[in-house]
């Protein structure tokens, strides 16, 4: 349970690590849009070039990125099977009533490439950005929504606090499970309903503790003069520097390149 990690930040000091987190969020967003814009080999080559350069610059081991894909393996297989057998067109292979078409193969390959690129791209963002930096960046990027009364600062604060307390509560759940096991609790046998019921002695102490922590934390924040986002300063305010603008330029080039491959070719 201790291994619960969100974002799985991979510490480093590469160019990608040092980019403003807002740039990384925007770039990831642009990259995902590009993936759905492109539709031919040169187009995919452009997105691949972008991804490969970003990975190379980040110095995050490729093995780690690939490992991140294992989580969506089922989804990938499902998508592949679905597209492979259910796309109508020119039959290239048939097996009883199952038919694989030329179009099916093309669609499948495209889907898989998109999916793999999408996951690798977004995990590259979480690998190179601390969760708190991401929360700060979200707050900053969502600022325009304040006009329509979206509590931007509060949302960002909630994300930060949740990120801090998830490992603590996970560890606590582990202790509670052990404490109830010491009272001969049985979590592993019996029907689904019985097992669900067996979790009550874990969930009650866990909830009580979570509320207690929330209450303590609220008091502690108040004691430290917290009064929402107004007039708050930041020790590390997000500021763009030259490399961030260059990164935005690369993003624009990527999007433009992708659109061109679609329009011209």
């Amino acid at each position, binding site marked *: 349970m201790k291994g619960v990690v969100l974002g799985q930040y991979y510490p480093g000091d590469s160019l990608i690590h040092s980019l403003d987190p807002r740039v990384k969020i925007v770039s990831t967003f642009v990259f995902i849009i590009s993936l759905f814009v492109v539709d031919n080999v040169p187009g995919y080559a452009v997105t691949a070039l972008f991804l490969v350069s970003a990975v190379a610059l980040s110095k995050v081991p490729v093995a780690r990125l690939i490992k991140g894909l294992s989580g969506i393996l089922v989804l990938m297989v499902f998508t592949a099977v679905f597209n492979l057998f259910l796309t109508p067109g020119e039959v290239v292979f048939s097996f009883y009533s199952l038919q694989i078409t030329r179009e099916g193969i093309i669609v499948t390959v495209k889907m898989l490439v998109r999916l793999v690129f999408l996951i690798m791209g977004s995990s590259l963002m979480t690998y190179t950005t601390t969760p*708190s930096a991401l929360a700060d960046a979200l707050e900053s990027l969502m600022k325009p929504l304040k006009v329509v009364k979206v509590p931007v600062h509060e949302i960002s604060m909630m994300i930060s606090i949740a990120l*801090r307390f998830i490992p603590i509560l996970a560890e606590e759940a582990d202790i509670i499970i052990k404490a109830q096991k010491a009272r001969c609790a049985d979590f592993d046998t019996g029907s689904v309903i019985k097992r669900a019921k067996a979790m009550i002695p874990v969930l009650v102490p866990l909830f009580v503790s979570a509320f207690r*922590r929330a209450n303590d934390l609220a008091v502690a*924040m108040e*004691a430290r003069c*917290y*009064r929402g986002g107004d007039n708050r*300063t930041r020790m590390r305010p997000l500021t763009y520097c030259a490399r961030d603008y260059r990164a935005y330029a690369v993003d624009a080039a990527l999007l433009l390149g992708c659109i061109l491959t679609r329009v011209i070719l």
Partner: protein
Amino acid sequence: MKEIIKTKNLGFDYIRRNENGEVESIARAIDGVDISIEPGEFVAVLGANGSGKSTLARHLNALLKPTEGTVWINGMDTRDEGKIWEIRRTAGMVFQNPDNQIIGQVVDEDVAFGPENLGVPAEELPGRVEESLKAAGIYEFRNSSPNNLSGGQKQRVSIAGVLAMHSSCIVLDEPTAMLDPLGRNDVIRAVRALNYVENITVILITHYMEETIYADRIYVMDGGKVAFSGTPREVYSRVEDLEKLRLTVPPVVRLSKFLRDSGLHIPADILTEDGLADAIAKEYNAGT
């Protein structure tokens, strides 16, 4: 007013209400408390669980408002809503549970939380944070995640968080109750250093007697009232009174009382091992 903290006839009721908002029960948590603390003092508040000492602590930071009587922090009445942030900045607080008061995901970010809330300019923040981390003896962990620190280290992060607000007074509400002996020593040492070196007023709330030996004064609380107060020497010599209040004295004091009751001439106000050994040896080598 010279005192940094002063309460006059302070009383507080915990009011429990049912679902309809009707009063179900009223419990008096503190009753007629008068204390006054001067700048630079190290004051300990001793008391068993339920004696009202934590409720008192929360009044010093305006987290609770008096039901009756008044609390002044540096001359400011805690019921004055306009002064509330200045009061909280003046008297910073450290709580019992080390986990439930750290907000930042990195140590230095957490220390900056207080001054950020106060709107301290960004360029001033790193300096303040560095200073505070050093004063609390936790600078080497500035880039760590709080989750990787020990309990004692986390409490020192919280102390640094108070210092970074440039508080002139720090109220610690049982800061060592959840720590092991080494963590406890570290925290107490850090607190003593702040008091001694930085001249910060310390109010240490605890039920560990050993932690109060170096205090200038001790208030002993019972049933929401100040039962008695005095210097550590004065307070510890009242062994029976303390035991009646569910408190005990440190082993040194217990042994010295045992010997005194057995007829040896040992002064009643000895607090340290060396002091006791000297007194016994003096008596032992005398009159031969």
